[in-house]
């Protein structure tokens, strides 16, 4: 398939031909080969499946796909067997022959490999019936499970590039922009800026060439949705960019992706080559006269390089430092030319809007936040993974219905949204909707989609300190409030955790937080105080406990806690004595144990080891 497609109509013909080649009744094994699952050793299972299919001579009858991330990383390695979408989780190499024998050939379900609902204890057969997926709305991310990311044919067969054909074939550039404005799409990279307006401003700006850029720097700790999109469905991002370039009148694009994402780099590079071979990228796209090409720029992985002016500097070969310029990038961005920078997920939303219509898209979500958002749900939560939810869903639904609640029956304390400089939202606000403006009102933000769940064993002062330490390390150091301010805030928090806090520290922290936010040059410093400000706002009692009572209620800050054995609960099982690295926990078998405070280094190993809840932290 090397011949260039010369018109939108020809593209449509190719799509139906490719679709026709797939027999919908044919069994297909789709195995998740996303980053999470690969870390569980999925490659060996993939190899085993291939061997088994070959050994049984099933090549023509059974399709086998290695797909991008399915999202439910907690339960990998996993396969979905089409057409029925039977879902097997935590499979091993030895399960492979049985899956083929019984399920693929024999239509029989293997109970053992099914997902068990932790609440109802019922085994669930089909992927779409698993509650983790049931409450999601996987418009952008859902195709990941259906296609091989390295196959443009797969993408075309599920209707990929239809939106491009529609835009180029029958819509004027301004009509495309108007559709994105009507859809009220807002940027998924953090700021939530209306995408259509940004496109419009870039289109109207003077200068040549104009650039469109995809921001795939994704530096938030624990976040991997952009990575999973680029790895699992690179053509959807590419299609969005080509449509954007057409609308804006741009001939040059860049994808700025961190070098630590080799598979994402590989898959998007291949996708661009495939699209170029078919005439979807390059000169005279689909015979329309419109030309557009894309380069990949690999970033060194600094968090601050995700900031727009730092990102431009980095592409231009200068140090990745934000520049204080009061000119919009849409007028003077990369190389001082009109530039439209959007996030990976933002671009991936574009084909949907064009394909299904702006009104359809605007029908999903809240008044001012439309469509869906992908979050990486991590922390103290049963179902970690990537979840895509409609805007407007409540945080409670995400945490409890999709996330399956808090492990070990512990108590929910807070959910942090918005990445390292987001805020911590308490139980009292769990019924708030996922919405750009609502999250901002709570002192947090949508950010790019990190969502970290915390339970009663997380100390909020310690959490604030942790995020500040991260941001301190990522600050470029150019401007005073961010460089020195975060450092000094962190030092104050450290003092509080040591039991040396003073009540006036809380006022100082709040005062500093406001001034750092107001005074910093870029949004890194501008948002860095959020974790401190929100934890003081919602968990002031915890700060006061550290300062006034010299206690850490969550039992985390080592200087403020002691470990002891509850004689009532201790059974003398010796579990604590066995794990204690300093021999502080001692006792005879079947007798009550003790902890020698002088030897105890407060590592918490005994607490984790005790099955009888006999270790008390106070």
């Amino acid at each position: 398939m090397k011949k260039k497609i010369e018109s939108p109509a020809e593209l449509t013909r190719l799509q139906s031909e490719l679709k026709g080649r797939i027999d919908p009744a044919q069994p297909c094994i789709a195995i998740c080969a996303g980053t999470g699952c690969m870390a569980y050793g999925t490659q060996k299972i993939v190899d085993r499946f291939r061997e088994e299919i070959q050994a049984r001579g099933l090549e023509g009858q059974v399709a086998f796909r290695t797909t991008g991330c399915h999202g439910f990383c907690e339960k990998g390695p996993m396969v979905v067997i089409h057409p029925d979408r039977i879902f097997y989780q935590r499979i091993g190499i030895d399960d492979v022959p049985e899956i083929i024998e019984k399920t693929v050939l024999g239509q029989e379900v293997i109970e053992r490999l099914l997902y068990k609902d932790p609440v109802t204890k019922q085994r669930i057969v089909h992927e779409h019936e698993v509650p983790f997926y049931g409450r999601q709305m996987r418009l952008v991310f859902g195709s990941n499970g259906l296609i091989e990311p390295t196959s443009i044919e797969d993408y075309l067969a599920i209707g990929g590039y239809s939106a491009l054909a529609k835009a180029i074939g029958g819509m004027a550039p301004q009509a495309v922009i108007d559709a994105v404005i009507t859809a009220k799409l807002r940027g998924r990279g953090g700021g939530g800026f209306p995408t259509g307006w940004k496109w419009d401003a870039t289109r109207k700006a003077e200068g040549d060439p104009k650039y469109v850029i995809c921001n795939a720097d994704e530096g938030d700790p624990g976040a991997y949705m952009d990575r999973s999109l680029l790895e699992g469905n690179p053509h959807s991002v590419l299609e969005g960019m080509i449509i954007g370039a057409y609308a804006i009148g741009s001939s040059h694009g860049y994808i700025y992706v961190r070098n630590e994402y080799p598979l994402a780099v590989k898959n998007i590079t291949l996708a661009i080559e495939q699209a170029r071979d078919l005439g979807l990228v390059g000169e005279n796209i689909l015979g329309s006269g419109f030309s557009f090409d894309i380069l990949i720029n690999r970033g060194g992985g600094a968090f601050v390089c995700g900031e727009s002016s730092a990102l431009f500097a980095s592409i231009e070969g200068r140090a990745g430092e934000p520049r204080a310029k009061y000119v919009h990038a849409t007028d003077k961005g990369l190389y001082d030319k009109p530039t439209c920078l959007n996030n990976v997920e933002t671009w991936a939303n574009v084909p949907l809007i064009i394909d299904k219509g702006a009104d359809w898209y605007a029908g999903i979500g809240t008044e001012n936040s439309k469509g869906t958002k992908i979050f990486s749900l991590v922390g103290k939560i049963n179902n970690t993974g990537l979840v895509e939810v409609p805007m407007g869903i409540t945080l409670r639904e995400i945490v409890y219905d999709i996330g399956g609640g808090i492990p070990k029956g512990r108590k929910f304390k807070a959910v942090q949204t918005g990445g390292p400089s987001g805020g911590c939202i308490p139980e009292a606000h769990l019924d708030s909707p996922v919405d750009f403006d609502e999250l901002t009102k709570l002192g947090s933000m949508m950010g790019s989609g990190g969502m970290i769940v915390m339970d009663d064993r997380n100390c909020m002062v310690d959490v604030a300190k942790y995020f500040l330490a991260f941001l301190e390390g990522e600050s470029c150091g150019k401007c005073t409030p961010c460089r020195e301010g975060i450092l000094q805030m962190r030092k104050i928090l450290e003092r509080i955790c040591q039991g040396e806090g003073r009540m006036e520290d809380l006022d100082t922290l709040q005062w500093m937080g406001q001034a750092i936010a107001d005074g910093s040059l870029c949004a890194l410093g501008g948002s860095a105080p959020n974790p401190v400000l929100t934890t003081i706002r919602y968990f002031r009692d915890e700060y006061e406990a550290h300062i006034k009572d010299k206690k850490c209620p969550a039992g985390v800050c080592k200087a403020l806690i002691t470990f002891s054995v509850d004689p009532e609960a201790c059974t003398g099982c010796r579990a604590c004595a066995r794990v204690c690295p300093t021999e502080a926990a001692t006792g005879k078998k079947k007798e009550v144990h003790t902890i020698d405070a002088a030897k105890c280094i407060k590592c918490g190993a005994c607490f984790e080891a005790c099955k009888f809840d006999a270790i008390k932290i106070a």
Partner: protein
Amino acid sequence: MSEMVTLTIDGRSAQAPAGTTILEAARGLNIDIPALCSNQELTPYGACRLCMVEITHGKRTRLVASCIYEVQEGLVVRTETERVNNVRRLVIELLLSRNPKHPRLLAIAERLGVDKSRFEVEVKGCILCGQCVRVCREVVGVSAIGFESRGTDRRISTPFNVAPVDCIACGSCAQVCPVDVIPFKEENGVRTIWKTNFELARCEKCGRYFAPMRQLAHFSRVTGLPLEHFTQTCVHCR
């Protein structure tokens, strides 16, 4: 002559040519805005954040660095609001934690009503205003020094921390430094800067050491005139 723009600063009407920064326009009205990283001869940098002012344009009110933000028709600027002063006080306290003694910083602190820094002091001297780096690159034209590392480890250094290859020992960096922390010494015909000794040329007429040989060689390279043209006599005796 470029187009004139009318704006309001602290309730007073001001006129300034388009392209002027708010800081320059305010100085024209004798309004004092503290500033440490700005220098009229150099590209605006906007890093110390002392010169923040509050602006209202249309409906939006926000804080901007006046050393970079250019005047706009109808702009309303307020240079001393509570928010502005809070940022400035924080900045000066933070800078005092790196350099607690320099009279220039103490004077700014006093003007802002800050008597001392509440923060833990770790003396570094340099406040990272970047004037030295910019003067070397933009005025001298050699880029002998630059920033190294990031975040709180950020510092000014010569490439790889060794004797600077491109330095011509002109001393411009030491001269622009607002807190005088770049060591600069002249003794027995030798100028020492960036931990490196540079030989000085001696005037054949008056016998005084007048300029580093490296600097004169740089002049010769730039102008294409022979080296002797510069090295033999000092400007006074020429």
